[in-house]
């Protein structure tokens, strides 16, 4: 299927109109010795109906979470998507637009992003937010780069209970940029306060935790805040499960300087993990240091001085500042931000709270039921939101085989990312799991024991 509207005959007429005879005439600047002398070795063009069949079959080889029961979280969460979200988010005026460089014909996207920035502030309790970043892990990197300042040298302290993938990404950037990372171990599933205190020095640029952390545990952020702030460093909190913001104290309330994280699970499909929706919220004083796009409200230059929205503070950005930009970000995740905005508007003040209550109650029910099975125990006694770690009497590989036989997707095995955590699996229970789903999981685990 070709999407080129002009026929070969029309194209020939266009060429002749210009006094040319063939398309080849337009390729004269491409030297002959680097011209491809054969067609690309790719499958032949395929029609729409044939592709639908072919890709439908390929998609069917994947076990999707609507066709099974899944207790996977670990950074990617299944929250119900109200029907209105995709119907509105996927309107083609949003989908097929570019970064809103011409604000007069991009008011829709600009206003939606302004609303997104506002809602991110409302749920995080911080003053300002940007228009989105690639994903939670790169949002964390951007927060660290902000904290390090120009030059990017210095050291940062990060809890071991921050998502292992995020830490891996941070290490990759540390290699390129030349900063150093100190990792702080956990105790009972939460960041060790003593070891955190020992790690933070006057030269520390940022102290990073995750709330709730990768084990699902709720960090004692009230105790961490003074330690994080004992030097000049910034207190950065990472949020991969934003539903927890409806129940737990907001980063603004506990004194975080910057909150970053992942909001894909608000209104967007998980699509094998991405495209995702990184966000960054911060205290007002960091406004001119923020990476990425920012939308601001303004008024018309003339006429009725009516309200409108524009990309603003662009002198921070790569297309103006080039090598001195605050970040190299150009593309962000606008369309996913629109999805999250509609999601939060739809749930609203009350629904957002109910979402969190459902998650926390269902997860605790599941935890109690599993704890009642002989041989299974909670790995930690720290409080948690909608994820928890279970230590099983058998290996996680064996557990996985049981789940596979039962046709469900279990939790996330922790032994690969955390050597020493043998037999430990991270289970997530959101509002989309029913009591019946949980009871099924418990039944399967009982059979493991038997």
């Amino acid at each position: 299927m070709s999407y080129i509207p002009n026929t070969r005959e029309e194209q020939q007429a266009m060429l002749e109109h210009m006094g040319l005879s063939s398309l080849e005439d337009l390729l004269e600047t491409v030297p002959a010795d680097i011209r491809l002398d054969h067609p690309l070795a790719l499958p032949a063009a395929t029609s729409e109906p044939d592709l639908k069949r072919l890709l439908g079959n390929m998609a069917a080889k994947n076990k999707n979470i609507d066709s099974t029961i899944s207790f996977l979280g670990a950074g990617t969460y299944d929250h119900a998507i109200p029907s209105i979200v995709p119907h509105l988010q996927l309107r083609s005026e949003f989908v097929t637009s570019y970064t809103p460089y011409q604000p007069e014909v991009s008011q829709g996207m600009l206003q939606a992003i302004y609303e997104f920035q506002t809602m991110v502030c409302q749920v995080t309790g911080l003053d300002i937010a940007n228009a989105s970043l690639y994903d939670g892990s790169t949002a964390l990197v951007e927060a660290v780069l902000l904290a390090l300042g120009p030059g990017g040298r210095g050291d940062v302290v990060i809890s071991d209970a921050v998502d292992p993938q995020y830490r891996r990404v941070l290490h990759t950037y540390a290699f390129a940029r030349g900063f150093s990372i100190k990792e702080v171990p956990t105790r009972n599933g939460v960041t060790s306060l003593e070891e955190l205190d020992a790690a933070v020095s006057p030269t520390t640029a940022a102290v990073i935790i995750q709330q709730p952390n990768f084990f699902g545990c709720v960090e004692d952020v009230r105790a961490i805040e003074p330690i994080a702030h004992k030097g000049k460093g910034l207190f950065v909190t990472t949020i991969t499960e934003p539903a927890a913001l409806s129940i737990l104290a907001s980063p603004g309330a506990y004194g975080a300087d910057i909150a970053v994280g992942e909001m894909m699970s608000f209104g967007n499909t998980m699509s094998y993990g991405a495209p995702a929706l990184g966000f960054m919220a911060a205290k007002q004083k960091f406004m001119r240091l923020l990476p990425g796009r920012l939308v601001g409200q303004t008024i018309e230059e003339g006429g009725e001085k009516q309200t409108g929205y524009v990309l603003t503070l662009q002198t921070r950005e790569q297309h103006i500042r080039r090598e001195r930009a605050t970040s190299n970000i150009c593309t962000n995740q606008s369309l996913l931000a629109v999805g999250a905005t509609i999601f939060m508007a739809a749930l609203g003040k009350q629904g957002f709270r109910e979402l969190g209550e459902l998650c926390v109650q269902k997860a605790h029910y599941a935890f109690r039921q599993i704890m009642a099975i002989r041989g299974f125990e909670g790995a930690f006694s720290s409080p948690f939101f909608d994820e928890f770690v279970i230590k099983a009497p058998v290996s996680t590989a064996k557990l996985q085989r049981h789940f596979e036989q039962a046709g469900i997707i279990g939790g996330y095995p922790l032994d690969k990312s955390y050597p020493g955590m043998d037999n430990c699996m991270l289970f997530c229970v959101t509002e989309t799991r029913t009591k019946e789903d949980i009871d099924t999981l418990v039944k399967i685990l009982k059979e493991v024991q038997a």
Partner: protein
Amino acid sequence: MSVEKLIFEKGAPGRRAASMPAMDVPAESLADMIPTGLLREELAPLPEVSEIEVVRHYTHLSQRNFGVDTGFYPLGSCTMKYNPKLNEDIAALPGFARIHPLQPDDTVQGAIQLVYELEQYLAEISGMTRITLQPSAGAHGELTGLMLIKAYHQSQNEGQRNLVIIPDNAHGTNPASATLADYKAVEVKTDTKTGGIDMDHLKGILESHGRNIAAIMMTNPNTLGLFDSNIVEIAQMVHEVGGQLYYDGANANAVLGITRPGDMGFDVVHFNLHKTCSTPHGGGGPGSGPIGVKEHLVPFLPGPLPEKDEQGYRWEDPGPQSIGKVRANLGNFGVLVRAYTYIRSNGPDGLRHVAESAILNANYLKHELAPDYEIAYPITCQHEFVATAQHQKDEHGVTALDIAKRLLDFGMYAPTTYFPLIVHEALMIEPTETETRETLDYFVSVMRQINQEIRTNPEIVKTAPHTTVVGRLDQALAARKPNLRWTAGQEVTH
């Protein structure tokens, strides 16, 4: 002119637009589960609106937005081609949209197969050895590529290489990415006759800094829309001093099936799948910026990478020299599904025809506009070209910005303005291959009319746009007194 109130200014206490599943488990006291000091004290002040209000609000917002589906979008270097609906349907299949990134490999065989095959397609299209699909966008690909180059030089005990050569017409992301990778950008000038790299200047840079050159970053065709015919010689010169060649794939739409960065001599290439492979730009994202590398850089690729054996498809962790990981999970999978579908739709001949048609449309527009607007480099262009409004400014005080704004009144988006920086009053025009001759002719007729207006009634151009939902907005005020969020009780300006 009209205003749409913010969602926060709509609704009433108690309204809502989503229902929650039943609480079907016995509930316990929250305070028994989580210490009260760690709990939220007040509800987040999100809107309280009904379903009909949400639907009307965001429908209205969409109507206040212009996309490729609305009309012509000649935004240079952004490749605003048509986004096939088939690709959206495929990406939305539950087997692609509703899978978790940490599922066991044997439950996602179709997904791994797709990325495995897409990797092979992109390697073939670019002439590279291996691809990583991890980078989230072009700039992310640039940074990843530079990290690979850094790791490679270090492995050769050449860690002193700290300079990256970047042409003065390069995308802003190039120097910004170089800085982020802890390199220093060195600018190489454009040859004002050919529009390619000034070879003497390049020679001088290589002679004086040879052993400190890490790489050169190039776009070919470049942002002037011109193919640099010296590319093979440039590759030889840079390689001779031990530097690597980085290909910014923003303009790859012009080379599909015609020539390949790998054959030109590049060591690293990034794709912008949201440009070349027609995946929608979504108002600024998501994009996807896979990179391809030559053999010597493969060991440094981020992981995991898809592999295939008799058991099926699986993810394999990279070796010890890998730079690690540049984002969580495996890349913008939803975008990759669309790109895969696009490549399969077109096939090899179709992709070449995409490039040829993009080049034809650009040259046709250039030819038709030339009597009214000076073309910065009046030679055969590739997928785009740069016109200048310098005469219009000098003679009538009308700028490229004014012309861009006036275009909006005719139901079209504007070209990229004031870029590349080396052309004054630049209007960078990229029609793409998916526009009809009639659309191109209409654009030309409007541009001619605007040029007429500039002579007879310049005010109408200088005060444009006149038919959009808002007039020209006060950018200076927005930057001077930034208002980045709504707060309850804030002064409403409309």
